[in-house]
């Protein structure tokens, strides 16, 4: 007897494949950086890449590489190397994966003189991270992010220069504090902007070249345009049924987070927006039979990306927005003054969704619940990411109290598949959907 495969009810955007190809090309290019005689910076956290781009560097983003390995199910060799080195399995799995890469990279640097990290004996890792020339850390909200680079520095025998951008948390001490407003916001913006100026000086020392301010303005002009297109396209998804989902926005994270600011980036998001517009004209929805609109809170579970996309759709759930996708990645382009971009850049780093106290997060969540007509929230209790998990139970209560929006919690992790529990997922999602149904029945009576 054969078991019928359930119908795939998802209808992903085809234009995001272009982004996937651009990202793959970006990494292929990174792997040959040393052969091309380029300076390589390893960085974590905030999207400092436009500054690196203007400085003529090649940039490797730690979480991005860890996420990529996890999405391709190739994280294990790096995590095994990390674990052999002594990293305990409860430590941030991005950090563990990337530190594992650092251990392998360092081993390789010592073993070969080429400077290119082969891991040739570990083909499955499919990665050849070029050894760094120096590190830059700019992690908002999460202390782990900053300490992770402090350790990478040590894995590389404390020999390479490291620059830290200290990004203060938007905690909300003062009564006038709120999302992008108040004395705290202005003061923190100035503090971070000042450090970015120092970062530029540091890069000039490292590269031996004067910084190209025009190049920075130019790349930020593309990023600003790309960001506007992305936000316009997201806005179109307030329609029900939605023409694109959270999963499509996840597929667009890499381009907006670390690909070079150039015309290709703008064209990419123009393509995404055009496809969504066309879907609206044609009456095409992203999930067949959309019955529930759900918001996703938590960092992405990269190992389970396709799996979760199909899974939610099986239940007629359209995941339409999320904290990770909608509250980060150049999401306030009006802040960017192309002619003098550092302040607006620093402000975006401050606006990382891990960098707010609960009050701001509540404000943002309620806004999204209204904007996207959300019925329920999926809280990904991201096992090794405390920064994302910190406020979740309180956000859940606020959503229920303020808007009557139901939620459920499921376990998983950014880059460690072992923490995901499928049975719990099903039963908790079903319970939330039932609660939504009951609520709907009541309002109909």
């Amino acid at each position, binding site marked *: 007897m054969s078991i019928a495969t359930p119908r795939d009810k998802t209808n992903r955007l085809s234009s995001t494949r272009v982004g996937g190809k651009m990202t793959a090309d970006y990494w292929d290019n990174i792997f040959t950086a040393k052969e091309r005689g380029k300076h390589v910076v390893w960085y974590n956290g905030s999207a400092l890449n436009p500054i690196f781009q203007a400085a003529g560097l090649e940039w490797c983003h730690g979480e991005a590489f860890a996420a990529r390995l996890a999405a391709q199910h190739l994280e294990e060799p790096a995590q095994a190397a990390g674990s052999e080195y*002594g990293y305990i399995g409860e430590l941030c799995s991005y950090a563990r994966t990337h530190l594992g890469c650092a251990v392998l990279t360092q081993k390789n640097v010592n073993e070969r003189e080429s400077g290119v990290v082969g891991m040739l004996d570990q083909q499955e890792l499919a990665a050849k991270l070029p050894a760094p020339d120096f590190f830059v850390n700019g992690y908002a909200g999460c202390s782990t992010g900053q300490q992770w680079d402090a350790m990478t520095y*040590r894995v590389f025998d404390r020999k390479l220069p490291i620059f830290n951008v200290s990004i203060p948390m938007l905690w909300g001490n003062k009564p006038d504090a709120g999302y992008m407003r108040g004395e705290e916001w202005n003061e923190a913006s100035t503090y971070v902007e000042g450090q970015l100026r120092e970062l530029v000086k540091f890069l000039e020392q490292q590269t031996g070249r004067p910084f190209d301010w025009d190049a920075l303005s130019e790349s930020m002009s593309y990023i600003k345009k790309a960001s506007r297109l992305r936000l316009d396209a997201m806005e179109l998804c307030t329609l029900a049924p939605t023409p694109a989902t959270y999963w499509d926005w996840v597929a667009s994270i890499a381009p907006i987070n670390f690909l070079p600011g150039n015309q290709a980036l703008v064209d990419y998001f123009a393509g995404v927006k055009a496809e969504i517009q066309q879907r609206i004209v044609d009456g095409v929805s992203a999930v067949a039979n959309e019955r529930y609109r759900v918001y996703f809170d938590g960092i992405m579970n990269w190992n389970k990306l396709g799996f979760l996309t199909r899974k939610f759709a099986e239940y007629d759930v359209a995941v339409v927005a999320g904290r990770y996708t909608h509250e980060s990645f150049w999401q306030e382009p009006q802040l960017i003054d192309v002619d003098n971009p550092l302040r607006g850049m620093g402000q975006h780093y401050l606006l990382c969704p891990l960098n707010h106290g609960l009050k701001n997060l509540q404000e943002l969540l309620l806004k999204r619940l209204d904007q996207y007509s959300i019925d329920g929230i999926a809280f990904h209790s991201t096992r090794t990411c405390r920064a994302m998990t910190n406020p979740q139970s309180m956000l859940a209560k606020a959503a229920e109290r303020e808007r009557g929006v139901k939620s459920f919690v499921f376990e998983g992790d950014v880059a460690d598949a072992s923490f995901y529990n499928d049975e719990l997922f099903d039963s908790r999602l079903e319970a939330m959907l039932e609660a939504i149904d009951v609520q709907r029945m009541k309002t109909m009576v």
Partner: protein
Amino acid sequence: MSELHAPSLATLRTAADDPVSYAQNWKDTHRRPVIGSFPMNFPSEIVHAAGALPVIVQESKTPITEGRSMLAEFYCGYTRSVADQAALGELDVFDGFVAADHCVQLLGAVDAIRYVRPEKPVHFAQFTSAMDDAWTKPRVDSRIGDLKTEIETVVGTAVTAEDLARSIGLFNANRRLLRRFYDLRRSGLIRITAGEMQLLVKSSMVMDIEEHTSVLETLLDRLVLRDQAPDDLVRLHLSGHFCHAPKPEILDVIEESGGLVVDDDLYTGYRYISTDVPESDDPLKALSTWYMQRNINAPCPTRVTSKVDWDTYLLNSLAESRSVGVVVLMAKFCEPHMLYYPELRKALEEHDVPSLLIETEHEGIPVETLRTKMETFIERIRRHSAPVPA
């Protein structure tokens, strides 16, 4: 049988075991506010100078109930306990809360306090944690300035430079006395168990500093020194355990297995009292100097710097205290510690120093399993090298 003066120890134990009751009594007697703060870099001197009682909030012994719905199970025991105590109203004695450290789990717990007790002032003076930059000290100066203003508002008293200088003097004197106990313990001329040392330090985090100092003085007066240090015990260094005190039963097992703890870098230990505040500078600026200097004297893995290393510091301490083994106490889920641990392990292995990692949990750990592990560890050290004679 303890070699320390029992009635004095009992006074310290009462406060350390139940800081909230101590705070309530103090408040009733003095009719002054009580301010709760958090590990590991808070300058209590400012609160004291404002005439309030500074108390570093401690992990509670009770199992976590209400707090379970606030922070996930994969948070360190300290933060879950803090959220739990707040949710149960056990921290209501405090008139306000102040934090200076940025550990992401700690911030989660402090945000949970704001959520369950919205009427309480909760101030966060984020001390820049990257220690090598030219802008770190000025920034910390300004955070300390804000902190002072906030404390003045909550307490209702303006703090003068003289008040602050006096408080700094009192805290320095207390730290000096505590370091004296450390010296004596290292010398082997008095046996101070790890549990007792913890009591001395922990009580200083929660008690009125002058009262605490006077108890320490009594303890010192009553000390009877030995002629010679015992030479049959394995000298150990306890390393790690941030933010909260490891359970005394764990410390007891370590010593019952034939180890003599002669030094530590625990937060509820030497880390807390490693550094005095300079008394010559402008007292507010002196507090940020203290913050910077502290990380040099006892490098802290929640800070980032390339100037000093915890592993180098640990190896130096071992040489000074002539410890022959290290017991690493790690609070489960403590990320800064998990991140740094491999560096320590590597350094110890390179120097052929035996070490044992013990992960601790709020709910406790099976003592008999620990005992077996410890005995094997001590045995390994005895075989590995004859204990260094004291």
